[in-house]
């Protein structure tokens, strides 16, 4: 009886497994066959009552069927689970064209970026970065720089003064970064190689002037630096900064704090309102420079018989405008987000000489 229809039973159960439409139906089949009261379990129990001679074969046949069925159930379950997952995933489709979550991106101001570029270049030439206060006194801003009170050059400076109590000397906003030369030389013995970038102020406001702007001062003082080094250093700087070979021209000029004095022009090309820095048929004045005047060295306690050197001053905003094609100086200080995003730089764009300063 146990073995009578085993083959038929096996075929039926396997067919049931194969036809199970879902995991639940499959489980019903499994319980019906292999559960505690399942048909194969019941038959297995009945084997004990069988004639010993038949028991062994019957047990083996039943076990075979059980294993076969269990394997079939597991295989079917795997199929059904796979199909269910596929169906679930199909239903979980997202619109990948919708915008992703964006991390907000900030910007670094062109003045900061160009400042970093300038530092990268001059640091490579061994210059340190010196600093000084924005609110200066007459001595550091003028007198020590060989600009006595009635000197015509003072009138070109359009100085901002601070209110002073009656009888006290008025403080002023530095009109150039040159007072940092004085502070540096008074605080450290030669040799000196510094640049001093910072804010400067002049009482001037029109299309091309703002009452505040940025300059970088350079100063080299030692026993051997001469005007040829001044030319070489600045020529090296402008080509590194503009990242093209830039022809330069030095012209005699006048600054009270240097002698000999010069202005440096860089080569450029103008066509239809656009300006390209580099080789061309025109010149553009970009900085003033010269050999430090012996009176300035003297005011700073440096023996001008032994020491000499050069100094220069460049407008940071101005060279930023030239390099990055920014048309209007006044827009630098407007804090207009549209402008800052357009002309600003990514946080990770740290300028280095080995990678190139700008993208």
């Amino acid at each position, binding site marked *: 009886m146990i073995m009578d229809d085993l083959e038929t039973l096996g075929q039926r159960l396997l067919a049931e497994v194969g036809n199970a439409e879902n995991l639940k139906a499959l489980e019903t089949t499994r319980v019906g066959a292999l559960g505690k009261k399942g048909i194969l379990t019941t038959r297995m129990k009945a084997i004990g009552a069988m004639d010993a001679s038949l028991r062994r074969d019957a047990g083996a046949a039943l076990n075979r069927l059980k294993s076969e069925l269990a394997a079939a159930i597991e295989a079917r379950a795997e199929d059904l689970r796979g199909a269910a997952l596929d169906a679930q995933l199909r239903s979980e489709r997202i619109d990948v064209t919708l*915008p992703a*979550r*964006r991390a*907000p991106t*900030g*910007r*670094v*101001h062109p003045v*900061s970026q160009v400042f*970093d570029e300038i*530092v990268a270049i001059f*640091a*490579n*030439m*061994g*210059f*340190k*970065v010196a600093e000084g206060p*924005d*609110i200066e006194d007459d001595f550091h801003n003028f007198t020590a720089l060989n600009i006595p009170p009635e000197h*015509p050059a003072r*009138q*070109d400076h359009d100085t*901002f*003064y*601070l*209110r002073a109590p009656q009888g006290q000397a008025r403080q002023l906003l530095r009109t150039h970064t040159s007072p940092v030369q004085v502070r540096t030389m008074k605080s450290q013995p030669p040799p000196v*190689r510094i640049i001093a970038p910072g*804010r400067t102020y002049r*009482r001037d406001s029109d299309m091309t002037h703002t*009452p*505040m702007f940025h300059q970088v001062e350079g100063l080299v003082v030692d026993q051997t*630096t*001469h*005007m*040829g*080094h*001044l*030319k*070489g250093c600045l020529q090296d700087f402008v080509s590194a900064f503009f990242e093209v070979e830039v022809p330069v021209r*030095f*012209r*005699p*000029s*006048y600054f009270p704090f240097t*002698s*000999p004095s*010069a202005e440096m022009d860089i080569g450029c090309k103008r066509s239809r309102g656009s300006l390209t820095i580099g080789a061309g048929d025109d010149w553009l004045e970009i900085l003033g420079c010269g*050999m430090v*005047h*012996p009176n300035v060295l003297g005011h700073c306690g440096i023996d001008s018989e032994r020491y000499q050197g050069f100094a220069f001053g460049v407008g940071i905003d101005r060279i930023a405008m030239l390099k990055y094609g920014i048309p209007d100086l006044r827009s*630098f*200080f407007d*804090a*207009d*987000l549209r402008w*800052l995003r357009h002309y*600003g730089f990514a*946080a*990770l764009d740290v300028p280095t000489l080995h990678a190139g300063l700008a993208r």
Partner: protein
Amino acid sequence: MKFTLSWLRRHLKTDASLADISERLTALGLKVEEVVDRGELLAPFKVAEVIEATPHPNADKLTVCIVELGGERQQVVCGAANARAGMKGVFAAPGQTVPGTGAKLKRASIRGVESAGMLCSEREMGLGDDHDGIIELPTDAPVGEPFAASLGLDDPVFDIAITPDRGDCLGVRGIARDLAASGLGTLLPLDETPVTGTFTSPIKVHLDFDTETADACPYFIGRYIRGVTNGPSPGWLQERLISVGLRPISALVDITNWLTLDLGRPAHVFDADRLQGDLRVRLAHASECFAALNERVLEADESMTAVCDDRRLIALGGVIGGTDTGRTEATKNVFLEIAYFDPVRTAATGRALAVDSDARYRFERGVDPAFLPAGAEIASRLIIDLCGGEASELVTVGAAPPPKPDISFCPSRVATLGGAEVSTEDCRKILERLGCTIEDNGDSWDVGIPSWRSDLEVEADLVEEVLRMVGYDHIPAVSLPRPAAVARPVLTLAQRRTSWTKRALAARGLVEAVTWSFVSENHAQLFGGGNDSLHLANPISAELSVMRPSLLPNLIAAAGRNADRGLAGHALFETGQIFADDTAAGQGLAVGGVRWGKHGPGHWLAPARDVDGYDVKADAEAVVAACDLPADRLKVTADAPEWYHPGRSGALRLGPKVLAHFGELHPRVLDAMEVKAPVAGFEVFLNVFPAKNKGSARGKARPSLRLSPFQAVMRDFAFIVDNDVASADLVAAVRGADKVLIDEVTVFDVYEGVGEGRKSIAVSVRLQPIQDTLTEPEIEVVSVRITDAVEKATGGVLRG
């Protein structure tokens, strides 16, 4: 400084081309701003003779002119009162662009009469402001030819920039002298032949100074010239003045202008009949007033040099003359003044009275003190030649100030300072060509300075002179020697922190701005500033009048402006100076930032929320972290200045130092600044950061890393505490419960709906064993310690 090519050639014999002269001027430091060849520019405009001029049939003020253009006649309608038959004018044809107005001419019908072109005014030709009538050309102007030549306008005009040291080049002759010294030509001699005086001047000159102030006017030469006729000056003089943009006035005025422009020698001519008694030069008295030629009444003070007659002040020496004693067309007898006025005093006077005159400009830059006698003779001759009359003997008072001391000069300095190899012989030639004298003492020379070069004071100035003459192009460029094969780092820690700060904030989504260092007084006061010593005495506007006490006011104002443009939900920051007082120590370095409107860029999945204090707290903490300060030692306190929301702001402290403030801005402040969006801000004070970073004693090596192989265990606790308990105190209590095992405590929930005055704070605690895996009893022991510690510190109990 403007002059024409032919004018220059009166002083300089040269074959050099216009381009060569121009290039040399710039190479000498006399920078050519522009060379305008007006002959070329004006060539299309021809001399026209008015053949017939009849009143316009339909308009009172218009004239219909038939003009002869040399083989061709045209009819033009003209509105000028001086249009008349027989005159010669400047004709512009249809199709030509009028230089003064930029308008393109068209054939037109004016009130029914055909007009084929126009007769032009000075303004239309771009020659001046005169638009009262049309240009009248000399009668000998050749009809049909370009008109420019007949007015001397076919002469290229140089406009050069003269640096303040080169007073000697404020006359055409000085420029010619510099060009000649550079080898571009030969300086032509100047006719200084004296005019013979036939009588003694009835007017004497007295220099009434004491010894201390005698340098105000040490030298004065005068001359009485009687019987002059002050008419218009001759064509050559008028043309020269016009060519550089000056209007001819009368011979006597034009002569003094000519002397100024041609020789850099200011002169003054008084109407002698309007003077009373002698001329006295002295310091002015306080509040002494006179009507000056600039049509202002000027009030002098005791520092100014006054030229007076017996009655009154009639001119400020070197600055400006007066109307009372000026020459007019009726002037018959004149007194000429050629004087030397002290540069410093002249500059101060001009500046105090806001008078910019050609005379002041030259005196303050230094006129040639040795040139007074020659200048007086040249001026006398011009007056007599152009106005007739008879000259007195010269009235000479005082003497030229002593010459500048010699400069000791080593020719080798041209190489060691100037970087250029110039032979000793060439140095000598150059200096001598410049007018210097040389006394050779072997290695060094005593160089005597020409009287017109008061700017040469030190050896370096002579190096510059030699370099100027050989050209700066001849200095070989030499790269600076490198102090190290591989460049050493140069930035200080503070400078690196500033840089880290900027890039860290930009990486967090804030956009860097650079704003003015000054704010309005109102804004300064809103942010704790407005200290009197930080007010500008001469601000450019009230908006920019006080040095800023904080970075926030400008950033908040910028936030408002951007929000008004529809840019809400953004963040700005700035790194820069803030000012507590006007000393160097009162200047701080801060980084400030604002976030306004909605937080973040916004997303369709996440509802936007307003910015709040925690956003800016994170910014401030990010700055501290970017600067490598020990973030775990920071204390957060709930005290921020009054411009923040009193309940939603705080401070980050490290020991006794306040490193930062952060929080939502006080609504009253936003209201006062007319900013509508909600704004949260922070300010980190970079200059109070400790001078060294954590770990700096260790060098670059990191502390050793110990990783435990044992499983960490997480346990959550929720405590009910009073509302005013600070979460930081609770967290500190938890941490303190077992300093070895507890390695992280995180607040993951704060719930306020647990009853009046109470809240629940839930923390997640990570236990990291380092010696063995934790057992349940061990975990239980720690848990009890945690609850005990919290209860002791905050009164909190475990939430049931």
